[in-house]
């Protein structure tokens, strides 16, 4: 935070308060980072998995956690010879709770790495604390474009940024789909973040946004908005929803016959492996952009999908893969420093050197903002053997971070 929140309050002030607490000086446990221990221990590496595990968003938090776990199991539960413990903390999608839980993980559970969270508002809320604490932090879900602007030295976003995914679609759609589009999105920050990113690149590519609609999160009935679109259908509709909104919108869009009149194009969470069970055939033929596609024809992805389908019947979604790859990135970096994760700076330096072929394709980090540089796939929903899946129809390679974040 600011300068005012001094890390070491003056000794006199501290002693005075302690004195009131009837404490002798020696008993205080320092909360400040200790000098790194040189020799590597065989003690477990503790990773705090701060995420939402219940109710809205819980499905994604769970997917990320299972992804981490899946990789870890595959690696035999050990990294660089050290056993790994995953500690789950539910942030309840509430920034106030999340801050509390982040402190718990860092100060009480003494984790060496924090992985999470899904919510961008959660990430924003804990950023200042995480910066102060200096604990390495692998972002596994939160996509807000602004998050990497803060350039936390120990934070690495191993997953999408909203800008990466939405602006890539804007440019591609203007060039390859239609020149006019309506934009409809959830009326909270992520919705505006994504709509802005799409609009900017779409307009830059010569497209025109004819209508923008923002709907309250958790809308039951979209008929009012959809009827509005039906009367003069735009050639294309760009959509951002997640969770139940994604199910309802895509179904109702189809039920009103709009899918035939206006091409349905969406953000990754709107049309992903975990929404298909709710959307059914209504999703068929829709196009979306994402950092991952479950049907990528690469050896890395095929191996991963086989592994995943061994455990579950379904196909992996973007967050399943995000968790899996995040642990892979941790694994590589920890090996690079011979398991000495206690040295946060060395670990961060190792993370920055990440250069892997993940199921989603090549992943490395922006050296300034620590945003993952990765491919963005344009995907289309197809039905194979009675199962809905996304199939890649175009690849935009090595998309980096939002340029102003680096400036």
């Amino acid at each position, binding site marked *: 935070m600011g300068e005012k929140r001094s890390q070491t309050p003056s000794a006199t002030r501290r002693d005075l308060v302690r004195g009131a607490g009837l404490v002798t000086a020696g008993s205080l446990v320092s909360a400040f980072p200790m000098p790194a221990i040189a020799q590597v221990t065989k003690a477990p590496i503790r990773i705090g998995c701060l995420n939402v595990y219940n109710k809205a968003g819980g499905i994604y938090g769970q997917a990320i956690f299972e992804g981490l776990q899946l990789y870890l199991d595959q690696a035999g539960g050990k990294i660089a010879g050290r056993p790994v413990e995953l500690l789950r903390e539910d942030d309840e999608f509430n920034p106030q709770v999340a801050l509390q839980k982040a402190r718990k993980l860092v100060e009480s559970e003494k984790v060496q790495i924090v992985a999470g969270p899904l919510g961008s508002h959660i990430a924003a809320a804990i950023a200042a604390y995480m910066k102060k604490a200096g604990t390495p932090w692998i972002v596994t879900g939160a996509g807000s474009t602004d998050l990497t602007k803060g350039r936390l030295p120990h934070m690495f976003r191993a997953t999408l940024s909203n800008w990466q995914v939405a602006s890539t679609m804007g440019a591609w759609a203007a060039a390859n789909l239609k020149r006019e589009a309506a934009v409809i999105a959830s009326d909270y920050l992520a919705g505006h973040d994504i709509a802005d990113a799409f609009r900017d690149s779409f307009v830059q590519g010569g497209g025109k946004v004819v209508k923008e609609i923002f709907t309250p999160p958790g809308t039951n009935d979209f008929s009012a908005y959809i009827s509005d679109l039906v009367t003069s259908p735009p050639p294309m509709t760009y959509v951002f929803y997640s969770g139940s909104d994604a199910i*309802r919108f895509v179904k109702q869009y189809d039920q009103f016959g709009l899918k035939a009149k206006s091409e349905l194009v969406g953000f990754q969470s709107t049309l992903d492996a975990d929404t298909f069970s709710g959307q059914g055939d209504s999703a068929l033929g829709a196009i979306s952009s994402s950092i991952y596609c479950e049907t990528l024809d690469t050896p890395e992805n095929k191996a991963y999908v086989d592994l995943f389908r061994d455990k579950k019947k379904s196909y992996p979604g973007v967050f399943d893969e995000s968790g899996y790859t995040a642990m892979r990135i941790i694994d590589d970096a920890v090996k690079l420093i011979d398991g000495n994760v206690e040295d946060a700076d060395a670990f961060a330096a190792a993370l920055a050197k990440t250069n892997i072929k993940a199921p989603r394709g090549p992943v490395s980090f922006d050296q300034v903002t620590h945003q993952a540089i990765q491919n963005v796939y344009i995907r289309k929903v197809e039905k194979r053997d009675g199962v809905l899946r996304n199939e890649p129809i175009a690849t935009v390679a090595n998309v980096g971070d939002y340029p102003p974040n680096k400036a």
Partner: protein
Amino acid sequence: MDLFLTQLLNGLVYGVLLFLVSAGLALIFGLLGIVNLAHGSFFMLGGFVALSVTAATGSFWLAMLLAPIPVMALAGLIEVAFLRRLYARSQLDQVLLTFGLSFILTDVTETIWGKGLSSLQEPRGLREGVEILGNVFPAYRLALLAFGFICAFAIWLVLERTRAGSMVRAGVDDARTAMGIGLNVPALRTATFAIGGGLAALAGVVAGPLLGVFSGIDVEVLIPAFIVVAIGGLGSLRGALIGSLVIGFADTLGKAYIPGVSMFLIYFAMIGILLVRPHGLFGQDPSGG
């Protein structure tokens, strides 16, 4: 103009959907005086049971028929095990109990069916659109509209025109007298609560193709249902119908024409109506007379 008529139709459909959700709530409050915060959970459970039934049989109609049954049994069980001991206590205790039960039912549902997002497929024959006012309107929504009014009529018929209905109403008006003339009031109460739960489950099934089936939908439908019941007058079925239509229209037209404030509109409607009529449109002042 066409668009406006379409929006009115949308409002009507949404209103009817809200009526199906809130009818059981109004029934339970009207007849038992219980504010049932677990109503959304019954709705959710109805959807999930229907999901299992359609997965096994492929028939939506069968799901509609079967899904309310286990939920009714569960509701009846809850009445016998818990609520029965609370009639003499304050409404707060009943509210808290059903609030607690809603947490438990959410957890149980997630344990059985998982946290995933699902929905029900409309029955064959209602999947296509129908041309109305020059635009496609989903056939399922029209069927829902008809079904909602049929339900309203059926509930009215049962309550007002059958012996069972008059027994229930007698038990409500004056439990002691009803017992005096030989009515089994505890059984009537159990049945009423079970039927209220069953209605919620039925609503959960028919709403499945529109709203989806997932954990968390319980709260999403509970709050509008409460607003409907508060506006209509607690415990009044007629009030629930009118309240549903008011909210259906207000919400839909708000989204269409004043999207900036649509998020608040239903709350404003509720506060405004309760300001003028503190006991709702058709509610009775419990302290008067």
